[in-house]
């Protein structure tokens, strides 16, 4: 059974962590624009380039060859879409940060952000940055 079918079966999808299906194509073009979108929006962070590329590869793994998807990601980038205006971009960024050590490192912007493996609540030791296990309620970020 496919991963998304699984998650759909397992209950109500509420901001839950299911990789969006069927949008993606593993061409260098798509990956390039997806990576650019992440780098643009998280330009204030030091991103491990190799890790970012690995994330992109994993994120788009199992996608089908879809010309429209290729066009879509290019348009998203040149159309100045960001995480607020595009759910696709929001998902891409969300899964990226959740897949790194960024929250484990208490959101320390001085540290290089490293990719740990595609985010998966069944594999990640601490799956949710909102949990008190990572950050207590009285600790403010700003």
């Amino acid at each position: 059974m496919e991963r998304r079918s699984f998650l759909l079966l397992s209950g109500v999808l509420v901001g839950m962590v299911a990789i969006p299906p069927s949008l993606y194509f593993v061409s260098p073009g798509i990956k390039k624009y997806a990576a650019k979108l992440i780098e643009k929006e998280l330009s204030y962070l030091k991103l491990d380039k190799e890790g970012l590329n690995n994330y992109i590869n994993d994120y788009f793994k199992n996608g089908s060859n879809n010309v429209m998807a290729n066009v879509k990601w290019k348009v998203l980038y040149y159309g100045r879409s960001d995480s607020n205006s595009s759910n696709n971009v929001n998902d891409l960024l969300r899964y990226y940060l959740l897949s790194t050590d960024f929250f484990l490192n208490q959101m320390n912007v001085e540290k290089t952000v490293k990719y740990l493996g595609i985010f998966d609540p069944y594999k990640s030791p601490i799956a949710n940055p909102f949990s008190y296990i990572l950050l207590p309620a009285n600790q403010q970020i700003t």
Partner: protein
Amino acid sequence: MKNDKYDLIVVGTGFASSFFLQKYLAKNKGNKKVLVLERGYFYSHVEKLKVRRGESLPDIKYEQKWDSLVENFNPKKDWHFTTGYGGSSNCWWGCTPRFMPSDFKMNSLFGVAQDWPISYDDIEPYYDEAEEIMQISGPDDTPFPKNGKYPLPPHRFSKVDEILNKKYGNKYISQPTARASRATANRNACMASSTCGTCPVDAKFSIENSGMMVYQNPQVEIVYGAQVYKLEMVNDVARKVCYMKDEKEYTAEGEVIALGANPFFNTNILLNSGDKNQFTGKGFGEQLGIQVLIYLDNLSNAGGSTWVNANGYMLYDGQHRKDYAACLIEVNNAPFIRFEENKWLNIASFRLVFEDLPDDKNYITTSANKLKPEVHYDGRSDYAEKAFKNAKIELPKILSCLPVERLKYLDPFPNEGHIIGGTRMSANAETGVVDKYLVHHKYRNVFVLGAGAFTTYSAANPSLTLSALSLFAADKMF
């Protein structure tokens, strides 16, 4: 089957059946023969976890898709459920707020729908009992009357929760939940992974980890793969249960029958049995759920300890229910995050859950395939839609104690994971299908358990209430 005849035949192994059996067996120790017919199979939590981690195991065949089991005539509306040992305890997310006393009196208080033939006070002791069995985590101060304490302490508040609790008191509480706030004898503590259907750490109550042991009781015989489709009636008394297993026909004879499948299958069984009650299958539905993201300035929402960290009752009760629905707020801890520098966790997520009213245009009926009910859902009522419009007006005022930058409403969810109504409870056969003890008005040896018996829906999640009703019915009738 080991016996020619049983004292009790139970259909299904979910909440409704398990809690009914729990009470029945406690009151009939050692002297009854019970047959349980489960359409699915035993598929353990351990095996599910392996599959979710990427292993391909034979038991995956037990994860049947809900829409392969019914004929759904509205492709825009989902009705998620699971079959197999434990039923929907395998896919629920563990939210266990009680109903409010007013939920049982919708007609006398607000002039809409019908009153239940029971009151909140009738089932209050059974709420306590169900909460003890489920080892619910919850606060001392609740908006609904509660005699005892919850077995486990409440989950931790985030800073946002603390502020709202300070302002609204017991109208904003740590959510009562079957996601354990600390480890129990059979479960781990919740890790707030926000993936509760199959909990990665087995913190959520399920029939499998419940410790209830009803299906291990030597009085109980369980048959898996038994798809019940009809009761054989003689002079309005159910004599036999008819089911298919491995494509063969079987019957089982019983004194008392308890239908504990979900409302789709309970209805299908009754209609196939010749039930002519005008309400059988009618008025089923569920709540309307809409997510709103709350962007906060200079305030992190970190620090919660479970998926739905709190419940808000600020839009629930009141005279507005004459005109529009109650709204229960689920304060969600799912990892919605922001990407502006230093604002990653400055976001809260509310799910606004609106009650709806039974409407006969939404109905369940039989199909040419005796095992497969038809599901016809036309849509939600204006009563629920109007409440959402009101919530959009009220929410900014409710949140005025927080540094809100903006609100973003997401599209309504295609389902809340609840199936309610279809065999509604009533004072008589002219206004419903079952009586206050969940016994069919016409077939007096047939219990019809579960959320199908709810007279009205409430905005609260149904599993705790339907479990309490099963305890109540078995306690009063045996």
